[in-house]
Every structure is written in structure tokens, then in C-alpha cells.
């Protein structure tokens, strides 16, 4: 199968979704180009010296803030890399640990690989019971309410 490469100078700011469909004997793999689902929902923080979106927002994110943490995940529960999310190294480590806490507490069962047990009650042993975590045990970056304001 010959690989065709198209050259174009202008790159449209669109995202892609790969859809795989089987119609009888034929497998159709389609790359759908579409506008980003987050187009009009991004928080605007103007006049900030820091390029990292989390440092600009200055929030104390807890492991129970599932609506914020799920933005950093793929549909199978994997973290998005820094070059996609645009956060700084320290915030990426903090988000990594918060996401691990939320996943262990069973708060994001729908963002998980297809082979995992989505409902915490179906897990084995101690994993079926409720757990909560203390965010102050994350040593790399302190929450913004205390240490960062002192800098």
C-alpha cells in the first residue's frame, strides 16, 4: 500500500479522532477531523507571567476534584503528557499523584482500561472498600494556599 504524504503550509487548529468500523469483510479506519470539544470552555487567565495553566489558576486541587483531574486523562485512564497539557514539570507530578489517589479511591471508574473492574465493589479484598487520601503527603509541590504565596 503506497503511503501518500500531502504537503500543506497552513495547519488547521483541529483535533482528530480515529474511528474503526467493520462492515462485513471490509474494515474502515477513518480519521475524523473535528473541532475540539473544549473550544469555548477553557478558562481565560490573562496577565500572568507563568506559562503553566495550573500555576496560573492558583488552585488547591484535591484528589476528590474529579471534574478537573479527568481533563488530564485519556479515555482509558492514562495521563496525557506534558507537551499536550502544557503544564510545568512540578504540576505534572502533582497531578500524577492526585490522579493515582483518585483512581485508587475508585472515584473515576469510567476512565479505565476495558479489562479493569469499573465498579469498586467488584474488586478483590481491600480494594472494594472506601479510601481517602491526604494531599499534604505530596512532597513535590505544596498547594497554593500556603507555600506558593510565600514565595
Amino acid at each position, binding site marked *: 500500500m503506497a503511503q501518500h504524504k500531502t504537503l500543506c503550509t497552513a495547519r488547521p487548529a483541529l483535533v482528530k479522532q480515529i474511528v474503526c468500523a467493520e462492515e462485513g469483510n471490509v474494515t474502515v479506519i477513518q480519521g475524523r477531523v473535528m473541532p475540539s470539544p473544549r473550544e469555548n*470552555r*477553557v478558562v481565560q487567565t490573562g496577565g500572568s507571567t507563568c506559562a503553566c495553566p495550573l500555576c496560573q489558576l492558583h488552585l488547591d486541587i484535591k484528589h*476528590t476534584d474529579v*471534574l478537573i483531574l479527568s481533563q488530564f486523562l485519556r479515555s482509558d485512564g492514562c495521563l496525557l503528557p506534558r507537551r499536550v497539557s502544557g503544564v510545568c514539570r512540578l504540576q505534572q507530578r502533582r497531578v500524577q499523584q492526585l490522579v493515582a489517589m483518585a483512581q485508587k479511591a475508585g472515584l473515576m471508574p469510567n476512565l479505565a482500561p476495558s479489562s479493569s473492574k469499573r465498579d469498586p465493589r467488584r474488586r478483590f479484598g481491600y480494594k472494594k*472498600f472506601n479510601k*481517602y487520601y491526604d494531599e499534604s503527603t505530596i512532597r513535590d509541590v505544596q498547594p497554593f494556599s500556603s507555600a506558593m504565596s510565600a514565595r
Partner: protein
Amino acid sequence: MSSMQRAKQWATFARIWHIYDAKWQNPFDSSKTIAKYLKGQHKPIYHPLSDCGDHVVVINCRDIALPGPEWYQRVFFHHTGYPKGGATWTLAWELHEKNPTKIMERAVHRAVGGTLLRKGLMARLHLFPDEHVSEDLLRHVTSQIPQLRVQPRRLDSYSEEEVRDFPKVFDYPADHVIR
């Protein structure tokens, strides 16, 4: 005594039934509050020998939450009294599987103190693994003890519109493949 004074007398000295929802609460932190109500230390007329304690009904004991690794680190000791192998150390999750109210019971048993009054205080504690409480006990309940920890919400409890309309921290870069 006038009827107003009689009503005040009853309101001061009556034994009240409180209800506490243990869902997503730490049993050891909640037991301190529950012990306070069992002894009657929340009342201005408190004295340890006055028998001024209240009843506490604890529901959803099955849904208590322990911090991090405590489910497999915390151990409950039991000795049968017989020699040679009478001592057993049971992990918290194993005990919770066998009897979902036992951890809460042990926590309150410790919080209430080692006095001779403990048996009477524990008799006024009513533990239930879920929300099913018999009507005989529920008809006495007139007060609720507030929860200590905020209950977290799971991601699938939010509707799709709520997740989609929530403000986003960053937008995907150009030509990013959504998986």
C-alpha cells in the same frame, strides 16, 4: 411547677436519640464525636455519674472510609483465652468483610474510655451496616450528628452535560488525536 417549667425540665433531662451517617467517614475520628454524645458531654448539665448520655444510631457502617493503606495495615487483635494459638491478628479489610459493623464498634469502644460506665454506653450505641433501621428505633430519632468529612462524588454521578460544560484548564493542541 407550671407547664412551661415542666416542658423545660423534660427538654433538659430527656434522653435523645441521634442518628449519624458513617458513609465515607473515618470511623476513628467519628468515634470521638459519637463517644461525646454517648456520654452526654455535649450537654451543659453533664456529670460522669449523672447518666445524662444519649442514644446514637449509626447507619451505613459498611461504607466507612480509611485513609490510604490503612485497610491492609491496621490490625485487630483477638485472644480466645485458650493457650497455644489463641491469639489472632486480623487485617481491617478481612474483619470488615466478615462483620461490617465491627470496626465502628471497636473504634467507639476505645473512644469511650476504659471506665466501668463503658458497658452501659456501648449498650446505647446502635450500629447498622446500611440504611435499613427498624421502625422501632427510628421513631425515637430526633436529631442528626453532622458528618465530619465531605462525601466525594464519583465521576459517573455527574451528567454528561455537567462534565462537558465544566470549565476546562487547557485546550488540546492542534492535530492532537483524541483516544
